[in-house]
């Protein structure tokens, strides 16, 4: 296959960016999209040209390190797929493909296609955990968790923190990410003690970095783990409750 790439090049956060055009010939359909970029980079370095910086690590859709906009879609055309799992067979010979970094105020550009997602760590730091010091845990089977509850918590916990939801959102909102993290813990019996404090703190840190959600639903479509936007509704419900709850009376029936 022969492909034309238009790739965003930007030397640093404060530098001006631009699109550069590359002709990539002799690509096999079995190659992954990132292997295609590897080959282009090998060729660029051999010619003495600056290679394209892009983030990646596991190359199997679980670490959440990779992620670019491909023809305007976060992680490209295939649903439920991270950039590293995308293969060239999804494109046609002769295609021109546009590749850009995640674009969001909460994710400043580091270089070319690489962005800074540490704002996600800040949201976790605010309360995305269950307080249990090492050694303080009771036997794991002491608290049964109904299978359905465990499965739903898992659906939320499947989030890989790649940031595609933010990149796809016209407002640059991080509600799907934050909702996934909050619901993973809020749904489990182990997460109840800190439920309200967690929700309040995480949502408020999210708002410091990211835009507001206006229910476009683009995030769900872009998510490589197909996390449902229902979680956003549940997060909003918990946030409202957190605001009105008298926490000193917690544990009593409402």
């Amino acid at each position: 296959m022969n492909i034309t790439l238009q790739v965003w090049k930007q030397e640093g956060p404060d530098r001006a960016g631009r699109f550069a055009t590359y002709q990539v010939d002799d690509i096999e359909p079995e190659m992954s999209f990132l292997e295609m970029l590897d080959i282009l980079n090998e060729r660029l370095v051999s010619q003495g040209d600056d290679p394209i910086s892009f983030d990646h690590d596991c190359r199997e859709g679980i670490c959440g390190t990779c992620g670019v906009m491909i023809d305007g879609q976060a992680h490209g055309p295939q649903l439920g797929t991270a950039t590293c799992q995308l293969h060239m067979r999804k494109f046609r010979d002769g295609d021109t493909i546009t590749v850009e970094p995640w674009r969001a105020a909460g994710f400043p550009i580091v270089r070319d296609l690489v962005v800074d997602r540490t704002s996600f760590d800040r949201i976790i730091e605010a309360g995305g955990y269950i307080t249990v010091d090492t050694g303080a845990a009771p036997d794991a089977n002491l608290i049964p968790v109904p299978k359905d509850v465990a499965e739903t918590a898992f659906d939320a916990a499947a989030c890989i923190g790649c940031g595609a939801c933010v990149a796809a959102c016209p407002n640059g909102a991080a509600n799907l990410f934050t909702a996934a993290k909050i619901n993973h813990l809020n749904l489990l019996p182990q997460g109840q003690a800190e439920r309200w404090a967690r929700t309040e703190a995480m949502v408020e840190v999210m708002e410091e970095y990211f835009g507001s959600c206006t229910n476009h639903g683009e995030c769900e479509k872009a998510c490589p783990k197909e996390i449902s936007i229902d979680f956003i509704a549940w997060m909003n419900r918990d946030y409202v409750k957190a605001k009105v709850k008298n926490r000193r009376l917690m544990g009593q029936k409402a």
Partner: protein
Amino acid sequence: MTINLDPRVPAGPLADKWENHKFSMRLVNPANKRKFKIIVVGTGLAGASAAASLGELGYEVEVFTFHDSPRRAHSIAAQGGINAAKNYHNDGDSVYRLFYDTIKGGDYRSREANVHRLAELSLNIIDQATAQGVPFAREYGGLLDNRSFGGAQVSRTFYARGQTGQQLLLGAYQALMRQVDRGSVKLHTRTEMLDLVVKDGRAVGIVTRDLVNGAISRHSGHAVVLATGGYANVFFLSTNAKASNATAIWRAHRRGAAFANPAFTQIHPTCIPASDEFQSKLTLMSESLRNDGRIWVPKRAGDNRPPNDIPMAERDYFLERMYPAFGNLVPRDVASRAAKRMVDAGHGVGPLQNGVYLDFANAIDRLGRNTIAERYDNLFQMYERITDEDPYQVPMRIYPAPHYTMGGLWVDYNLMTTIPGLYALGEANFSDHGANRLGASALMQGLADGYFVLPYTIGDYLAEYLNTDPVPTSHEAFGEVEAGVRERVSGYLNTNGTRTVDWFHRELGKIMLEHCGMARTESGLDKALAEIPALHEEFKADVRVLGESESFNQSLERAGRVDDFFELAQVMCLDAKNREESCGGHFREEYQTPEGEALRRDNEFAYVAAWDWTGDPGSPELIKEPLEFENVKLSTRSYK
């Protein structure tokens, strides 16, 4: 100076050693803990759990990762599960059985005391993770579910769909972020440790490079903990994440930390075969698939009919045939070699005839598609994305690939390396797995090390240094190391050669896979030992790294890692050559039984081979730690 390999195994009966040791170690009282600064490198399961636990205890912790977030460490990719001797299923499991299986699975090349402690701590790990909110699989009654895994006849593997590593790492990462929020842990992301600082024979700090702006900086502490993962990427093509590398442990080795059993590497039987030369990494298909999938090849060599057209009678279910007791669940090394033999004999399947089938048709008939989907759907989807084939319809194609490294920095019972004050945790150390690691045991070991071993043992070392300050970073010991780091970095940029870093890495990988992979011979290893230094010289003279050091520069990052792989590769080959026996993942063709099974030579080789740096990667000094077995009887592993 010959180093001291005292394993410091506590006295007493096996089952009491850890208890007794905890009591006899010195403690640091809570108010004094904040006077100690500990550097932790790595935020995988081992590093994140250690840093979080040390922070909880009140130590001042600084943690480093080259990733952009702690959650991205390679541990995230573990699929299958984590072992623990909970015996929730009443099927005869016990701490002793897990201990025994692990020693046996490791082909009797690990320390009894360490392995027993690991089995004991496995219980606490599951409790800890569950309390953190790790969503392990559950049964309808709401209690935890288990499955069986290679090398065991009981169901003791806890799992979280196909993402056990991600869920456990999220638990550890969240615990870590809680400490970051509390201020007890300071987190440095996108920061790579490039060297270790040793003063008066003790580890006192590290020198790092900020991967975003290239800044080189010094960090000092009372102790340094390396939890930097394994080195399977020396083979270029492996199941490891692309950035996994050996630089941290290799640099520590060059500063005096002995490197143990470097040749003990694991080739995982169930990976997707390479599809061509451009392949950038190999994808693992979880071993748990062997619970329900049956492995076979066509009986007739070169039979290239589509798999579903080959009648039952013309299929060779070779693992079930050769190992009737364990069948498809034999340990990894055994399964890998059997697959290699089949492919070498011309029975390989797929376009490049480089795989064997892993077939779910029987399981789907027996259990229904839904049950199979519930167990493996995400793995099936992963497979389909890569190969464009649907495993519900046609059998998967699999082939062994480098996956895990049992070798690593030598550590004593306290997880301290041969450099006082330097600890190694998780895959970065050599302990516990001997010559072969059983499935679902790496997660267990990383978390045992980080949550439950180091937080106790480190106090025993620190107690001696109460009311002493860390060595100031202005000290010349730091200056010298920093100068060396700067020289190395600018060296790559100034070489101005013609070949890319990846080209060299790929070539090195080919040599290693050919001569130091699944089967090794003396003549092959000699060949590798001639080719590797030559290629390394070429690398030094001809590598091309563009750009500058004061900015984000991914080729520059890789250059240093590959440079270190060249040196490590030589010690791996030397170790493989020295070990004139076959055991676990180390198979020397000269040493096999008439049936082609591994032939161990306990009289000569029941020892840990620790290599000490001499300044020349081609001639390190070998030091032996004899292994004593007081509880288990060394026997030939039999899975028939």
